[in-house]
């Protein structure tokens, strides 16, 4: 980056935002050289934007001078996402903090990125509504930051993470062009790409969020267990029973000890579980309460206490909420090595983590969003002690490896940023990573929008052996066939059950997934099922029914792949956890596993929704399942045409030779390849 370019850009940007809002003094640069992580990098300046309409003009200037920039909000992310590694600009958007609209009839709130999560909650409360994502940082973290990191919180167990609670995003793309993306858009679900994209694909300018009426009744259940295992088992048993509490949070004895609250718990207690249920029906609360207590007792609960009084409930939450603060009082630094594993692997993974901590003589409290399989070892240390820090780093890496080998993920809700980008190489295959890189490359040709985040910069692919599904013989056959066609550049029509693609041109050869119809994995403890994409929806529903489970997908003759490719209904995206895909060059890319939360790479499984076979062949999908039909909604997707400049770029990233369903390219992507 040339100084003269920066100087020119400053001139131009000052004309847009005012001289006062472009800061290049040393003191300012230094206070924008960190976020809540351990990462430090000094920017060349800070641009303060207080009006969302100015984001695009400013970004256009930066792009034209090829100057890297990093959007920043509260700077509370724990992975280094809000620092600029390339000595470019920080764009401070905290001043864009207006709530534009609250529409309780439609269940939508429209906000600017800088609106603080808790502030929105307080406004919504006045109308008896709430916005589900509730990160522990909600007092400061913003909606923009929450979307960029796909933040979660305790009540995401029932209501989903941030991604599950967005409806539409207005975005300024890396080159400054504006676009909006909606769940109802026709074609691939590009909006899903932005949740968790950490500012690498553009800047969120305005967000349309899902809001819900606050349930009339709630109940908090506090319980103590003799072992961590017992408490985890109580969690999985509850979920297995079909009860989906709003929150299920486990805290281990170490955290309680650190809080100096050992005396407040039973001598034998090793773990504390706090559960919260909510409903509009008092009856349901009552029956769930009875059932939960039964389950807890069965799992050896030493003590349970319940309350539906707000103040009393706060008391019950206190020990859980003290877990982090108490560590902050004794330590200078806390490393939260956020990760997620399938719930069925939770107990064994925790055992391994404890061993690692012990071996490395590390003090850490363990807290879990247990219902989600999300683990948070809170490791205390002093970053001024280099030796200690290195020891912590080493142990943290070992913990991360345990997440991965258990089939889990390196990031559940705290993003990847700089801190974890290297770990991607351990979790994902070269094919997966290369696809991610191509998406970034296409969308941000000059690599200016928050560069060097989220995506590994090194190339030493070293994916670990991990618990995952084998690639079936049938898939291998498909891969071989696609590879052959790729070499010969033969276009392919990707069909499900052949029912949906009408006019396939002569020169295009069909391929279908009819032979892919097996259930690959059925995990009752984890409440997930992984099925091949050619399986009929009806068969999946029937299979689950025979096992006493339920999935809210209409039992049609359509293949699962087809339902996804067509984006039949809006709620489908909330069920999808992971996906395997064959790309048009024959590469096999896997995204996620059986994890309830996964923020390691861009959310490709959701992007594939609505892609009509034009991006890749979906070979298998993992879904969340349930115990019974709990009045799930099925809303038909409107499939409204909204083609943006991003569309064709996505197509290029996946299928640069236009080999998959080429006859749809113009319709879906608005351009020819």
């Amino acid at each position: 980056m040339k100084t003269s370019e920066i100087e020119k850009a400053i001139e131009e940007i000052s004309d847009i935002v005012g001289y006062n809002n472009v800061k290049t003094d040393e003191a300012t640069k230094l206070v924008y050289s960190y976020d809540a992580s351990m990462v430090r990098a000094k920017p060349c300046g800070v641009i303060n934007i207080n009006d969302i309409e100015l984001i695009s003009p400013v970004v256009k200037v930066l792009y034209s001078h090829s100057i890297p920039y990093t959007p920043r909000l509260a700077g509370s992310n724990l992975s280094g996402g809000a620092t600029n590694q390339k000595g470019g600009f920080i764009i401070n958007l905290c001043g864009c903090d207006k709530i534009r609209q609250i529409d309780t009839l439609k269940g939508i709130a429209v906000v600017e990125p800088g609106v603080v999560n808790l502030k929105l909650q307080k406004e919504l409360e006045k109308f008896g509504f709430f916005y589900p994502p509730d990160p522990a940082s909600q007092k400061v973290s913003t909606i923009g930051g929450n979307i960029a990191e796909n933040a979660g919180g305790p009540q995401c167990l029932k209501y989903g993470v941030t991604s599950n609670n967005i409806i539409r995003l207005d975005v300024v793309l890396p080159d400054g062009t504006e676009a909006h993306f909606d769940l109802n858009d026709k074609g691939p679900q590009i909006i899903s790409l932005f949740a968790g994209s950490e500012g690498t694909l553009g800047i969120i300018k305005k967000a349309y969020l899902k809001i819900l009426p606050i349930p009339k009744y709630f109940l908090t259940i506090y319980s103590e267990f003799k072992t961590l295992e017992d408490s985890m088992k109580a969690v999985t048993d509850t979920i297995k029973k079909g009860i989906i509490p709003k929150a299920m949070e486990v805290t281990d004895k170490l955290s309680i000890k650190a809080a100096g609250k050992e005396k407040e718990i039973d001598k034998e207690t090793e773990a504390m579980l706090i559960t919260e249920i909510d409903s509009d029906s008092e009856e349901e609360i009552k029956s769930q309460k009875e059932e939960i207590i039964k389950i807890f007792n069965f799992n050896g609960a030493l003590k349970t206490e319940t309350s539906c009084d707000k103040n009393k409930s706060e008391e019950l939450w206190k020990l859980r909420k003290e877990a982090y603060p108490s560590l902050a009082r004794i330590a200078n630094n806390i490393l939260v090595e956020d990760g997620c594993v399938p719930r069925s692997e939770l107990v064994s993974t925790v055992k391994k983590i404890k061993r690692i901590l012990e071996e490395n003589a590390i003090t850490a409290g363990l807290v879990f969003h247990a219902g989600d399989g999300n683990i948070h070892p809170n490791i205390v240390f002093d970053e001024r002690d280099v030796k200690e820090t290195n020891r912590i780093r080493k142990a943290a890496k070992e913990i991360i490896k345990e997440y991965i080998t258990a089939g889990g993920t390196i990031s559940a809700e705290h993003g990847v940023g700089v801190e974890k980008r290297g770990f991607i190489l351990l979790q994902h295959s070269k094919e997966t990573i290369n696809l991610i890189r191509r998406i970034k490359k296409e969308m941000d040709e000059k690599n200016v929008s928050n560069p060097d985040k989220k995506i590994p910069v090194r190339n030493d692919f070293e994916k670990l052996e991990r618990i995952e599904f084998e690639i079936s013989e049938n898939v291998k056959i498909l891969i071989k066939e696609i590879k052959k066609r790729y070499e010969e550049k033969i276009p392919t029509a990707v069909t499900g059950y052949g029912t949906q693609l009408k006019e396939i041109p002569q020169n295009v050869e069909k391929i279908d997934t009819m032979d892919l119809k097996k259930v690959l994995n059925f995990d009752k403890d984890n409440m997930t099922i992984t099925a091949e994409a050619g399986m009929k929806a009806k068969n999946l529903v029937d299979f689950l029914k025979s096992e006493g489970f339920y999935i809210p997908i209409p039992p049609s003759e359509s293949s699962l792949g087809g339902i996804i490719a067509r984006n039949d209904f809006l709620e489908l995206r909330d069920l999808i956890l992971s996906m395997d895909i064959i790309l048009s060059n024959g590469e096999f890319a896997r995204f996620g596993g059986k994890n309830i939360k996964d923020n390691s790479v861009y959310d490709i499984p959701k992007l594939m929704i609505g892609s009509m076979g034009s991006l890749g062949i979906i070979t298998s999908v993992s879904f969340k399942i349930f115990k019974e039909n709990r009045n799930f909604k099925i809303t038909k997707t409107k499939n409204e045409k909204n083609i943006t400049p991003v569309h064709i770029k996505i197509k290029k990233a996946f299928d640069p030779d236009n080999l998959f369903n080429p006859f749809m390219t113009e319709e879906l992507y608005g351009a020819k390849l």
Partner: protein
Amino acid sequence: MKNYKNELFTEKIHLHELITKNGVKNIYDAVSQCTRCGYCLESCPSYVADKKENYSPRGRNQTIRMLIEGKQKDVNLAKDIIDTCLLCGACTNICYGSVATPDITLEARREERDFGNSFIYKAIINIRKKRKTFDLILKTFYIMHGMKLDKLADKLGMFDFLGYPSLSNAVKKLIKPPKKFLHEEINDLMPKEAEKAGWIYFLTCGTDYMFTNVGKSSISVLKKIYGNGIFMKNLCCGLISYNYGSLNDAKEHALKNIEIFEELRKENPNAFIVADCSSCVAFMKSYPQMFLGEEENYKRALEFSSKVKDIIEVVKPEHLSDIKLDGLKDKKITIHHSCKAYNDQGLKDEEEKVLKPILKENLIELNESNMCCGGAGAYSFTKPEFSNKILYRKMKNISETQADITLVSSTSCLMQMGYGSKTHYSTEVKHYVELIDEILK
């Protein structure tokens, strides 16, 4: 971690160690406890006023840490960051690690080129040592105020010269300057018997020179509740010197006050010290911090500070039981928690506990009740732009309660919000003890 990377914060002008909620720590250890989590941001009045990291507690802590570590070379380059802190303590109060940001920031401020060295500051300290001269100067200003000459004086920068914290704004903001200072008539107000006093009244400068009615109310309330008491004939608590000038001078004031107390205690062994400005009270409660490492004086300061009480904590609900309200019946009342009571002293709901049973639904909860009003001693004078933004936010919150009366407990808030009630939203700003006095009458 004892090793400083450079010379900063090691010279005489500083406190070397702080008493934090996590024990005694040197400045480097104290500031390194900031994990950069950012949790404090939205609680900080200067941050919410401008939404920039520069004005956040985290920004201040990190700047100071980088100064100590030599990554930031010159404190004067970060003056804006350091000087915009109101020292209100809201951040410490919300921070998981209770990082002592205001104390740390103040120590950094002492490092600035012009800190405490200005001719003006020195002049005042000297004049103030001669009470009669000081009285005379101030009275002259009050007369000028009456004759509206203060506006002219302001233009001429004369208040700057006087340098009493906030005086320029103060006089602008002063609604009704008293004719007599409280120390001139206090003897007539005190209980006549001087034996076995239950309380010792500490007269703060704000009460003495500006809000004499507050002092009168305090004395009247204390007499009713605690009977016999005496006037301490104290010196200024030293907060002005501590915050704006010389640490040594502050210590001198403290020691002098401690001495006076020790003398009085001989006759009145059970008496507590009580004052009606939460800022001064909070400072006196923190006297021991200044004497860390000085064994004897530290002990004396500890003893002294353990006896200091804020007027808002000595009025208890039982003192007002079976009260019938007449005059206040239709008035809506709200409470602004002065930061120095709420954040520093941890007095979070003393007023509510007393007033809720009698005022019932007429006592309205104030949003962000403990966020600073922007007064903060000389802040409204040195950082008028910030101060006004912060005041605006406060008055907006008050306007949402539609309160007729707003209660505060520090003279700085009285001045600032009194001004706000003229310029932003009309509410009668009163010291809590004035209302209690009224009720007890």
